């Protein structure tokens, strides 16, 4: 099995790739015991720092660590340039697409994206039709999942445009590596990532409603029992903005205010980490206690900016994903730099027939699923699981898409048996404001069980520090 996969560190004949050479030599000088001791030290530090996530479905207050692997993932500058160009291109097109969907709908009229796939989609928010947003930016923060199949061969797996998380782990993993192995940073020239919160706050301030000189920006969290609460608190602190819950905000005369000890204070930009559905009980789910009644009205009146914009989810829906390369050609008149994974849309009868005949080789995903839930990995599934999924697909084919099982690249990882290859992906964070900025690297997630292809933290995935080496 192992040789089928691209190994990030070694070539097929066992030679070390040049950008890993120094790390490889360093690792060979360290004993397993010492590395294990360092890993335990990292775990203890993460616990003490409270870098933990709450687990859904377990007793309230249960907190776990996301496993941290001490072996970094290294990208040479040349590959990063390719990724950076590809990501910038992709997010520009996606922003243009959302603006078009809620504007003139040219791409639908041109027949490039089927209108019914958009207008009947649960992620399409008719409330946003013809509502201008500052700078035409919808996806202020995108966390694009990328996998590698070969040298320079990257595929975009998902464009997460709603409330992508994980950036705090990118930052904390770097901080941890510098603390544990400072000598590695003198052996390598690693591009820094620490300025991410600075870039983010500048971006958020730049998209404030027109005429506000010193905008008040807040981060809206579902609260401390949310699995990403640590990240919300961390980012708010790093940016020096208030971390608010829905109950802290209210809307009066179409303006948003927060309740402070000195009375109500205007809010101009809401960096929300709550899904559209829960954002405003008057407009979306009425039972949501997490949101702010009237927020949509204030937003539509142009009195507050919401990032990411309401309705952006239409562009990262799995049923819309197959059309992204066409969007790039349509809006930018460019050829896509990053590949899409070939995708069968089961709404189409001939795609569906092909997928049903080949279930044991394919990955099938629910269109609205996330977090690695509700998917079938054909090659790893039992006959019973495959047959169960077949039934589900036949009952509601429009709910599914299918893709070939990708040969995710593997990176050496420190596991119980020592250093061994484990499959990884990469989530760079793309920030859109006046222009598009990406801090070099992103979050590398690693599937820790041998052979596993599921990197989600909810399914036992871990994280690694991600190094983009600078030239020279």
């Amino acid at each position, binding site marked *: 099995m192992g040789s089928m996969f691209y190994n990030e560190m070694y070539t097929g004949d066992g030679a070390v790739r040049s950008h890993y050479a120094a790390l490889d030599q360093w690792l060979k000088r360290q004993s397993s015991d010492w590395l294990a001791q360092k890993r335990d030290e990292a775990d203890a530090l993460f*616990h*003490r*720092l*409270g870098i933990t996530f709450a687990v859904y479905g377990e007793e309230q*207050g249960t907190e776990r660590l996301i496993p941290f692997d001490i072996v970094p993932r290294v990208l040479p500058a040349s590959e990063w340039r390719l990724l950076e160009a590809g990501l910038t291109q992709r997010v520009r097109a996606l922003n243009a697409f959302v603006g078009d969907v809620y504007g003139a709908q040219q791409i639908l009229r041109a027949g490039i994206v089927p209108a019914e796939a958009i207008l009947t989609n649960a992620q399409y928010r008719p409330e946003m039709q013809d509502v201008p947003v500052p700078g035409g930016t919808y996806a202020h923060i995108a966390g694009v999942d990328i996998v590698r199949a070969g040298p320079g061969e990257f595929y975009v797996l998902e464009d997460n445009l709603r409330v992508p998380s994980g950036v705090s782990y990118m930052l904390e993993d770097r901080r941890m590596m510098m603390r544990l192995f400072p000598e590695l940073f003198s052996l390598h020239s690693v591009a820094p990532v620490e300025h991410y919160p600075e870039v983010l706050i500048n971006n958020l301030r730049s998209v404030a409603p027109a005429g506000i000189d010193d905008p008040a920006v807040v981060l809206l969290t579902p609260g*401390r029992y949310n699995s990403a*609460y640590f990240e*919300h*608190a*961390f980012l*708010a*602190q790093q940016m020096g903005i*208030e*971390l*608010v*819950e829905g*109950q*802290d905000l*209210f809307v*009066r005369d179409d303006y948003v*205010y*927060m*309740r*402070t*000890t*000195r*009375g*109500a*204070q205007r809010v101009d930009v809401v960096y929300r980490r709550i899904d559209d559905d829960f954002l405003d009980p008057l407009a979306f789910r009425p039972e949501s206690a997490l949101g702010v009644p009237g927020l949509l009205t204030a937003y539509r009146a142009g009195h507050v900016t919401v990032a990411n914009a309401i309705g952006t989810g239409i562009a990262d829906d799995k049923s819309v994903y197959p059309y992204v390369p066409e969007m790039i050609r349509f809006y930018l008149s460019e050829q896509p730099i990053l590949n899409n994974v070939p995708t069968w849309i089961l709404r189409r009868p001939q795609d569906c027939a092909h997928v049903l005949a080949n279930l044991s080789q394919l990955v099938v995903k629910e269109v609205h699923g996330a977090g690695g839930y509700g998917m079938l990995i054909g090659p790893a599934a039992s006959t019973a699981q495959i047959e169960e999924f077949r039934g589900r697909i036949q009952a509601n084919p429009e709910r599914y898409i299918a893709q070939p099982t990708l040969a995710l690249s593997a990176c050496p990882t420190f596991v119980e048996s020592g250093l061994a290859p484990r499959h990884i992906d990469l989530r760079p964070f793309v920030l859109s404001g006046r222009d598009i900025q990406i801090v070099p690297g992103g979050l590398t997630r690693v599937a820790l069980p041998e052979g596993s292809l599921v990197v989600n933290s909810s399914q036992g995935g871990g994280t690694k520090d991600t190094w983009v080496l600078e030239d020279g």
Partner: protein
Amino acid sequence: MLSRTADHVYWLGRYVERAETLARALDVQYRLSLLPQGPQSVAAGWLDTLDELGLLPAYRERHGEVDSEQPAQFIAFDRHSTLSIYGCLKAARENARAVRGAITSEMWETMNGTWLEARGFDPQQQRQRDPGEFIDWVKHRSQLFRGVWRGTMLRDEGFAFMRVGMSLERADGTARILGARLATASGGTAVSGYYQWGVLLHAMSMFENYRKLFREAVVPERVAELLVLRDDDPRSVRRAVGDLYTGLRVVANQQSRETERRAGELEAMLRFGRIEALVVDRLRAFLDDCVVRLRDIDRRITSDFLVAIESVA
């Protein structure tokens, strides 16, 4: 700052301080229990302590009879209430977690580390050990937190709310600990009086200070003067109320004037009070009055600052 944030910071300060108060109350009783006396008078001392700390109903519900052993376990480790030291540290940590972005990283890490260590104490094992070890640990963690707070936090509204919470809790705690001692202390000889009041001074870390201030033997009037009326005792009721008043002046808003006035009034009572006027039989009523006034100020703080205010500034 956000009302919700202020609320969490206020309670973070209160719970940390309350854990320390409980540890000191435990310390008094533990030291007394080492003096020669029968188990009945030990139990009577615990009864007064539980009563004065407001823990008696919860204790009775859980354990029934007040004996000489259960109360210490209850005060230190009870897992089910926010009234034990364990419960206070848990609640403090939850409040800190809710505002970890508004307090400093060092404050959060100190509080989180305290909680992780608190979870590591096994009540059954602790039963066999010198309780002094646990008491010292609690005092140390509380002092550490206070040091990190003072040493890292911006002198802003958040700092002032922490100060308000801590000082209100401290004033209340000192009044109650002294109240419990007044309830139990019997006349007895000068020697037994020395021990009875000496343990209180030791538990409040004030024995050496007492020696510096007063030449005379350890007598109830002077102990009370030190713990209630003096401005130079950092744990005295007067000192704590003075801090509370200062903190309230910093956070003042349009509707908090009356609260500020009441805190100032209590401060003046303590500032201009004379111990001779409060000889032991009137002291008790005076302390009760302080506790009632502090409770009133707490309620007013909640309605002035911590619940939703919708008026536009």
